């Protein structure tokens, strides 16, 4: 049963690729989300407009369509750019384009999560921080961000689960992740069923484990919240 037909190491490295890809995409989309949320809540009409167009379009178009669109177009645009600048051709590998596209797509979902969370923090908190003489960034880091995270965590947990599952799509644009590894192994050993189920089990373990971590984080960020005993 545990004889993976010599494909153990490939499947293990595929699993690691999947984990790396999801964590990097999470970081990129987290940063884009923070940027997008601040743009949406800013006073500038142009920033609000750009952020609204971004979140609306991204959330209306399927992620796979966007992924194929960006994966194929990014390379063409990059070639045009390097041609125009007279540089050598620079090839994007599937991993980098995977991170860029997943980060860009899920940044829109994070923007909405963070926007809601920022709005849930009482206004007085920021005003009090400012009146103490904290600089804008300092007040954001010490006052707004920690409190915002408490409201954002449930949405963040959800987005993380979605990103983790969306990494499965990146094998379609040729990344050797867990799906590619298990499919190759299955085709070579004529045991596609076993290896496909194995991929599902790996994903199930990953989602369950990350659920545990997120519950711990939830506890940490809820320190200081009093709950009525139920």
């Amino acid at each position: 049963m545990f004889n993976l037909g010599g494909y153990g190491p490939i499947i293990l490295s595929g699993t690691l690729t999947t984990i790396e890809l999801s964590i990097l995409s999470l970081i990129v989309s987290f940063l884009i989300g923070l940027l997008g949320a601040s743009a949406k809540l800013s006073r500038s009409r142009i920033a609000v407009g750009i952020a609204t167009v971004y979140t609306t379009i991204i959330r209306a178009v399927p992620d796979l369509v966007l992924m194929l669109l960006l994966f194929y177009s990014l390379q063409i645009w990059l070639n045009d750019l390097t041609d125009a600048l007279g540089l050598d051709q620079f090839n994007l590998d599937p991993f980098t384009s995977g991170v860029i596209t997943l980060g860009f797509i899920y940044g829109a979902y994070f923007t909405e999560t963070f926007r809601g969370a920022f709005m849930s923090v009482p206004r007085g908190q920021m005003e009090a921080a400012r009146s103490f003489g904290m600089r804008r960034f300092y007040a954001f880091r010490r006052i707004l961000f920690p409190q915002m995270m408490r409201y954002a965590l449930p949405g963040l947990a959800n987005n993380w689960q979605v990103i983790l599952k969306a990494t499965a799509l990146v094998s379609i644009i040729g990344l050797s992740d867990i799906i590619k590894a298990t499919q190759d192994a299955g085709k070579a050993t004529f045991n596609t069923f076993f290896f496909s189920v194995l991929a599902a089990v790996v994903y199930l373990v990953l989602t369950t484990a990350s659920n545990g971590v997120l519950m711990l984080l939830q506890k940490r960020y809820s320190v200081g919240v009093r709950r009525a005993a139920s």
Partner: protein
Amino acid sequence: MIDIIQQYWRPLLYTDGYTMTGVAMTLWLLVISCLIGFCLAVPLAVARNARNPFIRLPVWTYVFVFTGTPLYVQLLIIYTGIYSLSIVQHTSFLNAFFRQGIDCTLLAFALNTGAYTTQIFAGAMRDMAFGEIEAARAIGMSGFTLYRRIIIPSSLRRALPLYSNEVILMLHSTTLAFTATVPDILKVANDANSATYEPFWSFGIAGVLYACISFTLIFTFRRAEHRFLAFLRR
């Protein structure tokens, strides 16, 4: 861009001359899988809240497995995995079923959306105001009547906003059908890309079509919420 539209507008919208393709195919996948998923989800959601663990746990496991793994993996298991089993290849009706990409796709989509919908409906049933149930009991309703007249209609209404979200996500998931050779919008766009080497316009047009469908669905669900959740309006 213009030549892609001129050449591919017919397959993108409804047919390539032989079979149903494009928007028609995507909508067909969406409607059938959501219908089957809905019919699965209502009884399963009731079972999910049952007191008996032998009823509750199998449903919990089904939801756990299907929401914990990517739909693409589920599709791969059903489309390439199950067909490779010799028992399936040697049983004639199973062979006939699993050989068709569209059957496997519909099965995977229905099971997947069924699991998410079960989760949504079960949550809505759990969160029902206890007074409603108490009142129904006081009138003397039996268990079945209570579910049929009170719990199911009320919780389905309240689940509407979340359910609309799930339908939109399902629309986005139907794009995976092209990996099982089902000619949906993305498959046609992919063909257009291979023929013209214009990925931005090929996939961009597909994106616009998907966005139109998304916005139509959102608008329809808004109207439905306005009507069915009128009692929550302030």
